[in-house]
């Protein structure tokens, strides 16, 4: 479908532009403002130039070390999450029932964790993983494995990863399911006539058809795990020690806990720029995939 060029379309976009600019640009300007100033309290600010940024990006300083530690932790967490949730989501999507009421039932049950407020998700797992009153913690401990997510950093990580898999795998699965539903039956018939194996069908028909939705899934999962805050805050509070202090948690500690506005603002901006860069990368890949698909279909 070719679109007509019409600059008056801006009139339609203007309200959205206004409301998002009000919510995004104004606050961001405040952040920029704080990031180049220092304060001794009493609302007296003075110019600090790029001082905070230099400190932040230098791992040898206290602030810089803390920032890079949190950054690596967050990246590691996102990587683990993607490596588990994407294959698992595909497997679940392939296991969806074909038709009838089981489809609706599975869809509703799968979507349920997605609509639970994030701190309630945290609470659920905080309780579920406790060794005294939680089913999971109790079972694991009775299997003879010493498990306590408030003391042991590895246990804390495992708890958070399992929690996130529980919370978000359905999103990947639902996206993949939507992609699978768009494959015409004729493709499968052709594959059957050719005597294609189950694996060949997956590799050459299902996976390519899912590529676009998988991209969306990876994008959403990466972004949301990269800015995860509420669940670890509720479950571990960033501990034990700093073991699960992800970027968002560190940022909120810095900004609302210590009221180190300059440092927090500089950190916010760098954090935002990282997200922006990755987002741009995904967007470019996605538009390229789209263009390619249109060329193929044309």
């Amino acid at each position, binding site marked *: 479908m070719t679109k007509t060029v019409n600059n008056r379309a801006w009139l339609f976009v203007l309200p959205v532009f206004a409301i998002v600019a009000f919510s*995004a640009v104004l606050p961001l300007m405040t952040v920029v403002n704080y990031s180049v100033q220092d304060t001794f309290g009493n609302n007296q600010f003075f110019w600090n130039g790029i001082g905070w940024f230099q400190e932040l990006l230098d791992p040898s300083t206290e602030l810089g070390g803390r920032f890079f530690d949190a950054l690596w932790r967050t990246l590691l967490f996102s990587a683990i999450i993607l490596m588990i949730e994407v294959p698992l989501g595909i497997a679940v999507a392939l296991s969806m029932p074909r038709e009838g009421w089981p489809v609706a039932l599975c869809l509703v049950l799968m979507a349920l964790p997605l609509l639970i407020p994030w701190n309630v998700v945290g609470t659920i797992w905080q309780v579920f993983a406790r060794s005294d009153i939680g089913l999971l913690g109790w079972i694991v401990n009775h299997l003879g494995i010493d498990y306590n997510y408030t003391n042991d950093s590895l246990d804390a990580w495992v708890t958070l990863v399992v929690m996130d898999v529980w919370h978000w795998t359905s999103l990947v699965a639902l996206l993949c399911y939507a992609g699978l539903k768009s494959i015409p039956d004729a493709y499968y018939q052709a594959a059957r006539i050719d005597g294609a194996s189950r694996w060949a069908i997956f590799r050459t028909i299902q996976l390519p058809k899912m590529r676009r939705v998988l991209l969306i899934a990876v994008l959403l999962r990466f972004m949301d795990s990269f800015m995860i805050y509420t669940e670890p805050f509720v479950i571990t509070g960033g501990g034990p020690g700093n073991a699960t202090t992800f970027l968002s948690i560190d940022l909120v500690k810095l900004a609302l806990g210590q009221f180190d506005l300059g440092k927090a603002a500089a950190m916010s901006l760098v954090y935002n720029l990282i997200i922006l860069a990755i*987002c741009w990368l995904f*967007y470019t890949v996605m538009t390229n995939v789209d263009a390619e698909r249109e060329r193929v279909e044309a």
Partner: protein
Amino acid sequence: MTGTMAVGASETKPIAAPMAANRALSGPRVSGRVVVMTLYLLFLMLPIYWLLNMSLKTNMEITSGLTLWPREITFDNYVKIFTDASWYSGYINSLTYVVINTVLSISFALPAAYAFSRYRFLGDKHLFFWLLTNRMAPPAVFALPFFNLYSAIGLFDTPWAVALAHCLFNVPLAVWILEGFMSGVPREIDETAAIDGYSFPRFFLKIFMPLIASGIGVAAFFCFMFSWVELLLARTLTSVNAKPIAATMTRTISAAGMDWGLLAAAGVLTIVPGALVIWFVRNYIAKGFALGRV
């Protein structure tokens, strides 16, 4: 989902072909698929069951030992929530800002999505990308500036502050989803309506909106969902009068010295609105998650 329609349509044709295709697809692995699905659903439901289980127990029973189901079912925890204003007002506050936000997001996003789906204009791609980045911006970055901003304009501690703040990520999302659905409607419909003498607003309301009704439903579902589950901004922007239920929960645990049963009951009640909404949109969920563009 279109799948159910397709199944219905194929009943007039010989049904053997799709069935055979399905068999080719699943082969002897039918049991394997059922096992995967059952295990996955079990994994999803266990923690929720545990919460429900706890909410029906007394605190005595919870702390005295592990029981797989409540020995004596008690509804005291629920009664307390429904009779104590400091508890149930939290639900009302949450639902208020969620509804305001959903209405705002959809009504702002509709014309913009139309523009993106039908026209090319100066800076359209950049604008679309910029909108998308706001969906991806970490709320933690915005918590403090939002606090300053909404305090300055006197909206702090009102549902409007939270509703407007959530527009930051819900408006771009709604534009994205609606644009996908609108692109699926052929342009010829716009042109035919114009030839038939429909003015643009009348065309949009009477003809176009019914055509993308499912898209609007899906977009509304997503706005509802992301506004309902978000807590960081909602908690930062409210103190007493508009405090969301999720924040009420965290506050009361520490004050009451771990009232597990009450906490669990409040948690169960936060799941209910989501479950209801899912039930209504279940046939569109999968397509909606693909943002209307599979």
